[in-house]
């Protein structure tokens, strides 16, 4: 198996913000790879560097072995990017948009594949509609089509399902999974962690421009074999506050390592006289792994 995407010590600063701070990772051909992190973690900057939209201050990035700066033509031919922003050219129809994008890659006789894309993305009835007249979800489908129009080996999807209805989300993932089975490498960033959990084989987590976790999904899940307590209460005992993963309007998610810890939490609640509204135990899922890593806990384990 050869390397589809390789990033070595990439750094990028915007003014005072160190968007990327020595990021390294390698994605193998055929992988379904997740790139996760909170807003501002550097995910889009990293994708922009791969795509040649942004230049790195330091480090190297390669697509199928082609340096994104010195062999940008080969690198860009191998890469398809679905951008995060819902952008379109209001002068053209759906079919014109795809034909023009295809031509930019030097493919001027690409009708069969464009027809197939229109079909898979359920865009056939809209093929001759102007881009302006399309709904947000439809525009998103065209963006996916544009990214795939030159049949790139590596496909990067930057938050492709943000603001997209459930139906499209399902059909989009069916299509992307099919492409992945056919050998395309997929790199996905998403806010929907359940999507990443369902789709990705390996996951990198970025925080403040650094890779804080990079492992298979199974390893990430088993590394944090602990449990999560979902507690509805007025507050959390003082000693337990550092273990709160997330809190939202009186609902606290608290990480514990084993069942025995639950007894100690209950004791602390009783001693401080805090009434329990609700209490439930949850298995670890990717969201909780993510919260623990981003919260700083388990940081050393991740490295």
């Amino acid at each position: 198996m050869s390397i589809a995407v390789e990033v070595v010590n990439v750094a990028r600063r915007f003014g005072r913000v160190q968007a990327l701070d020595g990021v390294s990772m390698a994605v193998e051909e055929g992988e379904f790879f997740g790139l996760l992190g909170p807003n501002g973690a550097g995910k889009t900057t990293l994708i922009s560097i791969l795509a040649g939209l942004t230049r790195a201050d330091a480090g190297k990035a390669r697509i199928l072995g082609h340096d994104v700066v010195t062999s940008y033509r080969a690198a860009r031919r191998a890469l398809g990017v679905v951008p995060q922003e819902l952008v379109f050219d209001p002068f053209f129809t759906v079919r014109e948009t795809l034909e023009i994008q295809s031509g930019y890659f030097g493919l001027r006789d690409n009708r069969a594949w464009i027809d197939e894309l229109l079909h898979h993305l359920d865009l056939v009835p809209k093929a001759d509609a102007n881009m302006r007249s399309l709904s947000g979800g439809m525009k998103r489908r065209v963006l996916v089509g544009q990214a795939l129009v030159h049949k790139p080996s590596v496909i990067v999807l930057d938050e492709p399902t943000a603001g997209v209805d459930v139906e499209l989300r399902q059909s989009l993932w069916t299509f992307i999974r099919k492409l992945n089975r056919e050998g395309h490498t997929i790199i996905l960033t998403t806010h929907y962690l359940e999507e990443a959990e369902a789709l990705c084989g390996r996951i990198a987590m970025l925080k403040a421009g650094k890779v804080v976790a990079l492992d298979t999904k199974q390893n990430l899940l088993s590394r944090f074999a602990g449990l999560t307590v979902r507690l509805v209460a007025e507050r959390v005992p003082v000693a337990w506050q550092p273990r709160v993963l997330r809190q939202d309007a009186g609902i606290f998610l608290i990480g514990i390592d084993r069942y025995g810890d639950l007894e100690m939490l209950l004791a602390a609640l009783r001693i401080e006289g805090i009434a329990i509204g609700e209490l439930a135990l949850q298995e670890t899922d990717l969201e909780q792994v993510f919260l623990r890593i981003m919260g700083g806990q388990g940081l050393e384990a991740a490295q």
Partner: protein
Amino acid sequence: MNLSRAGWPTLLYKELLRFWKVSLQTILAPVLTALLYLLIFSHVLEANVSVFGGKVTYTAFLIPGLVMMSVLQNSFANTSSSLMQSKINGNLIFILLPPLSPLELFGAYVAGAMVRGLVVGIGVFAVTLFFAPSLLHMPHPGWALAFALLGSAILGSLGLIAAIWAEKFDQISAFQNFLIMPLTFLSGVFYSIHSLPPFWQTLSHANPFFYMIDGFRYGFFGLSDAPPTTSLAIVAGCAFALSLVTLAILKSGWKLRY
């Protein structure tokens, strides 16, 4: 470079399709504007202005000036508005993601601007010819064409630079109103610079637009204020230098790939 894998012909096609789809605004409107200039100026000035020692009527003198002015303004408008709209709408990414080289970007955008400029120029010439049919007998059509091509390339490049630099449409308008318009109007579109006081004559010789208009007019009358070879050398030099500057800007990624 293997031409069958080159992306620039499609970018040129897209640029042409873009202005063709809104031709009412991009072709007909400037033709109408030029026609209005002609009607008003020729009516007011025909009897009062003598050009080239009375060898040419004012209306006949004015038409090539208006044609060239339209070529120049529309070449600028094409690259500047196309690139600016793409930047503002965010769809510039569709051009930045494919393997298009700086030279391909430059060539396709500027060629698109030249076509738009020439189409508008031909349109203006066609409707104004009615007022001076003798203009059809051009002594040096090749010279006129050379100046039209070089002038539109210069303005197309300037439009690209302006749109790369600008962050809002206001700044494009400023570029247009404070640089392009004064240089065009003070270039001798409406008058022969020999009718100016000496100071303004000297100043006009520092305006590259003067050589574009004057050289273009030479193609129609075989008469000009400056020697046509001098004009051609200056205009070609400007076109070459500006092309290099634009290419260097595109290559650096300034304000486009950051």
